[in-house]
């Protein structure tokens, strides 16, 4: 912390830029790829009765309560090079271990419970009579989902996506366990900060990346507030 006020402090090194870009890419891919599954799971938990519902709910929430390292290790067992599904996936050209895609998988799994929770609340808040009205007007359950449930759940879906995105940006334990900490491939902002703190004189770099992380997280939160406010205004809940 000896050189904080010097002119070069805010200049990010190429390696740091790489970590930032990688983090954003991993978080974005993780969020977008898990979105359809998150919506389907949230809707099923909110509206459908099926055997094993409690079990599904438990599994979805598991990454929230397990130590992240355990989740990462389970992913390694399941999807690693020598894991349960790893070799067969490798045959069709999908490899997760030590790739940025693996980091995205780890982030998606860790963010999933947060995403589903927010979306589920939003689906549960929808007045069932609107669904009934839609069905009496001739819309099947599927059409009703796309024309009534989905648009009305948009605020919750956005919140869920933002939470998952923020979680993905900050994810560390599961990612480092599953895909290690390879600069340019799996080294995210969090992993880079960790690396900085492990070397002498790395504090300055760690501080720079910390500021970037705070900036990205705040931007995401502000964006979600704005989008939510707009959605609610459109639905007439406020003003």
């Amino acid at each position, binding site marked *: 912390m000896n050189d904080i006020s010097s002119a070069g402090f805010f200049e990010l090194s190429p390696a740091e830029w790489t970590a930032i870009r990688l983090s954003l890419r991993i978080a974005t891919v993780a969020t977008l790829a898990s979105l359809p599954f998150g919506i389907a799971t949230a809707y099923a938990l909110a509206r459908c009765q099926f055997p094993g519902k409690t079990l599904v709910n438990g599994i979805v929430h598991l990454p929230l309560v397990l130590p992240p390292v355990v989740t990462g290790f389970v992913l390694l067992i399941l999807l690693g090079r020598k894991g349960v599904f790893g070799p067969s996936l490798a045959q069709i050209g999908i490899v997760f271990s030590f790739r940025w895609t693996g980091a995205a998988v780890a982030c998606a799994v860790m963010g999933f419970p947060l995403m589903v929770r927010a979306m589920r609340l939003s689906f549960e808040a929808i007045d069932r009579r609107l669904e*009934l009205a839609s069905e009496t007007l001739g819309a099947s359950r599927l*059409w009703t989902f796309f024309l*009534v449930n989905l648009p009305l759940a948009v605020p919750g879906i956005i919140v869920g996506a933002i939470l998952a995105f923020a979680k993905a940006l900050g994810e560390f334990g599961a990612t480092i366990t599953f895909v290690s900490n390879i600069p340019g491939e799996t080294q995210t902002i969090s992993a880079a900060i960790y690396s900085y703190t492990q070397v002498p004189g790395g504090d300055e770099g760690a501080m720079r990346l910390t500021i970037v992380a705070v900036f990205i997280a705040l931007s995401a939160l502000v964006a979600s507030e704005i989008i939510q406010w707009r959605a609610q205004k459109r639905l007439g809940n406020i003003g």
Partner: protein
Amino acid sequence: MIEVDVRKKVGAFSLDVAFANGAGITALFGQSGSGKSLTLGIIAGLMKPDEGFVRLEGEALVDTERKIFVPVSRRRIGLVFQDSNLFPHLSVKQNLLYGRWFAPRGERRIDFDAVVETLGIGKLISRSPTRLSGGERQRVAIGRALLSCPRLLLLDEPLAALDMQRKLEILPLIERVRDEFDVPIVYVSHAVEEVARLAACVVIVDGGRVKFVGDPAEAFNRLAHMPATNRFDRSSVLMASVDETSPAYGLTKLKHQSGTMWIKGSAGPSGSLARVIVKATDVILSLVPPHEISARSVLHGRVANIQIEGPIATIEIELKEDGPLLATITKGALEDLALKRGSQVYALFKTAALDERSIDVANAWGD
């Protein structure tokens, strides 16, 4: 035509109803908890009966014996709820067109502009449903159901959540819908005035059973004899012809075989028939022809029956060529007047007591 014959148990409540409707509006009338909404839910397909069938135009929508259950979305039955349940994320226009989009192309016989015009919702088209008043919302909800071109329209207490002014606005609209768009309607309500005004046929449901099926006048007379009915709800339905209007006073004189009645407002051309609903609690009895009294409506008749419940007596007065008129008076008054079967009485009621819902001019029954 809809034919219903279903049984269903919900907890301790058991429903066992059977009826069929004719043209025009069929009213399912009953207190809350009588099973009328449950019946409506079974017709719409929101729930399954334990046993029985519902047929629409001869086609089985549900038949437990033949294991048929047509899902809600394929029944093509329009349903309007008490609270309109418009889609808040869509504009009024999108709400109106929602069901139309799902109706088979060849069945879209109800014209968008005609519905908008009839319901007077042209100005609301581009607005959001969240910016509408209760009455406006309900009009849009009726339009939305109508535009799905349903084979049957179910109205579940559509006016219950509205204040009197809004009710008076929407009642004639429902009449116009009935007259202009040839859709059979089942109207669920516990409001005597609405049912008497709108319905061609009344189905009285009580305790999960059908107690009566028939025309409104007879229905309400029958209702008066049901012990479960609150005595303050007892009403009679009278038929009278329009005699003259007096625009200066804003009143209309109605001629009845047994006397004259005055109602507020105009009631159509002279000679046309009007249905008047008189609450039993609004009737005053006199033994002599009244004079020097403010009540303007006087009917002469004969006491046909007296029913005493605690301090209150319900008197049934036989009128010339019309159903009986009911009057509730205190037991003390009954003794003072020495009323008994066969006594000649004059029944008086205040014009001000007849609200506008009590009078239906355009629709004399049988049409």
